[in-house]
């Protein structure tokens, strides 16, 4: 049985090759780049975007977009820390904190999915709305009191702690990633999402539960953004409504670099994950290589474009339209 068709691996192969090239160059510039310590550091850093990108990929495969990531992360992160043992409140709901925080993300995702599929509001607008609702929840929870920090050293240390040599944060991401990949490949939902992205009209005409699938995709994305928010809060040891800042612009380019077309129907979770890896390694490598911070943004952008061109070039004809 074949898991993935060979053609689908052409892009990722080029992507992995460019990661290898980058790694070699960075190791040459600073041997510490190749150290076990940095390897763990990178895995620690990719964990949060990897969790987010599972949901993002499903949504983009539909041909929609989920902008709410950062807002949901802020809301869920704040809810989780305030319900866990923290320096501000005397509360500790233990495991329930997780359920409630992820529940907020699920609810926001459900709202976005329902509005998008049933009321036919473009996902761009709906999720922009849920982004701000999430941010609003985060700000209200934050209030005008002091910054809440985690009290439990066990929770604070958990993401960095090594299991079988790799940080726990990465293991969590890996489990989510594997579950996402299986969901994508071995369920009618996963393949249905691709079908809808290819042609929603045909999907409706063949009797697919298009609305349900869209709602599931957005709900999943919301729940995973919430989980990412909790992990990020744990990593930071403190809560902040702005916790997710910058994540949206990591995951969307990562998905595109991985070959997930923004108009839907293409790409896969593992490929997006490789995209995330490329972006994080690029950033980490530039710091380690000692690139002047003033030039870092520019160099980052230039290498990013070079990577995309290298990966995507062979597939483009003269009349192929890119938007």
């Amino acid at each position: 049985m074949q898991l993935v068709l060979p053609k689908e691996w052409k892009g990722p192969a080029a992507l992995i090759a460019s990661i290898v090239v980058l790694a070699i160059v960075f190791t040459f510039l600073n041997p510490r780049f190749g150290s076990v310590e940095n390897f763990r550091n990178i895995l620690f850093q990719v964990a949060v975007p990897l969790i987010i990108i599972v949901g993002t990929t499903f949504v983009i495969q539909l041909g929609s977009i989920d902008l709410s990531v950062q807002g949901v992360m802020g809301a869920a992160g704040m809810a989780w820390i305030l319900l866990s043992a923290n320096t501000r409140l005397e509360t500790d709901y233990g495991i329930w904190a997780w359920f409630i925080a992820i529940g907020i993300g699920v609810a926001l995702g459900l709202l976005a999915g329902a509005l998008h599929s049933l009321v036919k509001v473009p996902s761009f607008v709906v999720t922009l709305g849920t982004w701000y609702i999430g941010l609003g929840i985060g700000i209200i929870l934050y209030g005008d009191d002091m910054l809440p920090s985690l009290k439990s050293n066990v929770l604070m240390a958990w993401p960095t702690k090594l299991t079988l040599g790799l940080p726990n944060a990465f293991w969590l991401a890996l489990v989510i990633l594997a579950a996402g990949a299986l969901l994508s490949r071995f369920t009618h939902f996963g393949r249905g999402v691709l079908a809808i992205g290819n042609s929603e009209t045909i999907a409706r005409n063949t009797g697919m539960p298009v609305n349900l699938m869209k709602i599931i995709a957005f709900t999943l994305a919301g729940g995973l953004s919430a989980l990412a928010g909790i992990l990020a809060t744990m990593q930071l040891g403190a809560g902040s409504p702005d916790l997710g800042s910058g994540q949206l612009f990591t995951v969307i380019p990562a998905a595109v670099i991985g070959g997930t077309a923004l108009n839907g129907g293409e790409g896969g979770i593992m490929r997006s994950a490789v995209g995330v890896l490329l972006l994080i390694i690029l950033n980490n490598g530039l710091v380690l290589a000692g690139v002047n911070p003033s030039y870092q943004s520019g160099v980052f952008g230039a290498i990013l474009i070079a990577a995309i061109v290298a990966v995507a070039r062979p597939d483009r004809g003269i009349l192929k339209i890119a938007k």
Partner: protein
Amino acid sequence: MDIKKNTTMQAKFQTTRRRFGSTIMATVALACLASSAIAADTFKKEDWVLVASVINTTNPYMISNIEGAKAMSAKLGIPLEIVNSNNSSQTEISSILAVLASGKKPIMFVNTVASSDAPTIVDAVGKAGGFVTIWWNKPADYHPVDVGNHFVAFQKHPGVSSGRCGAKAIGDALGGKGGVVMLPGVQDSTTSQTRVAGFEAEIKENYPGIKILDSRPSNWDPQLGAKNARDLIVKFGSDINGVWAADDGMQIGAMQAFENASLLDKVKFASDGLYPTTLADIKSGRGKNAIVGETFHRGYMASSVGLYTAYLAATGQMDPSKQPLEKRESLFKLSCVTPENYKDYLKYDEADAPAKFVEQLEKVGPWAAEPMPLSGGGAEVMPK
């Protein structure tokens, strides 16, 4: 005589006058005297509104700004409008214009999102017959004395001293030897630039044995602070003896990164702002007293001083054009906090501290209140 008309005329006068002789200066001063005398007679609370514009409502400093404005509003008995700019100059300016359109004259404190927002806001306030004090950011060549009485003052804490405080604390804690890394804020912000300049200058002048290993702008963001710290740990490992961050938010992230790497008790930290979390860490001696230096200033102090200065101009109790330069472009004292003296500042974080501070302002005026009396004026001098 209509105050509004008069002040706008002055504004026009003053912006065009610069190179004219002292006779014209004198005439203008007379005109101002006349107008303020009339203003004092006619100041009616119900015609005015206090406005406090903040960059966002998620940063503890901004929240403190709002607290100060509330305390001032309660004290003066003038209603308060809060403008939340949501980190956007566009939102800031359009919200302020909306408030101005309400018909009441504003007494305003603005913590500007970007330096370049200041002239637009000041102009609009002038046209609405109000008075404004700008905090922290304005264009370098834009001065209240050139603009007019409605731009009452520009105020800030000197960034250079903040940087020097941090450098002294780390330098002393390390015994003048070791490697440090820096986490500046948003790279092109004046506040960050002045703090960085102060830090670098102090190290260069007085701690030749301290080596600055690297500097990674972290956009005032705790997450980014943590991320950059992790990369720097990999890059320099145990060569890092000290970490300086341009504000406490980034320091909180950086400390977590060092703690996760089991390095927290081997490294000294210094930063700016003395956030409650930071204060708690100093109290508890987290990471074998990892935090060695902080600066003390509070958002509520800035906003109440700013509003009170504008209020004095609005009521005519103070004529901006007759004030010396340091009261138009003011630098307020910044206190260096160490684990030894932090207790002196605890009282400023008690629940009634903003109210007490406002009371003090009413007694001694905006330029002499403890712990932030006026310390200098004019443009901040950057060290070489």
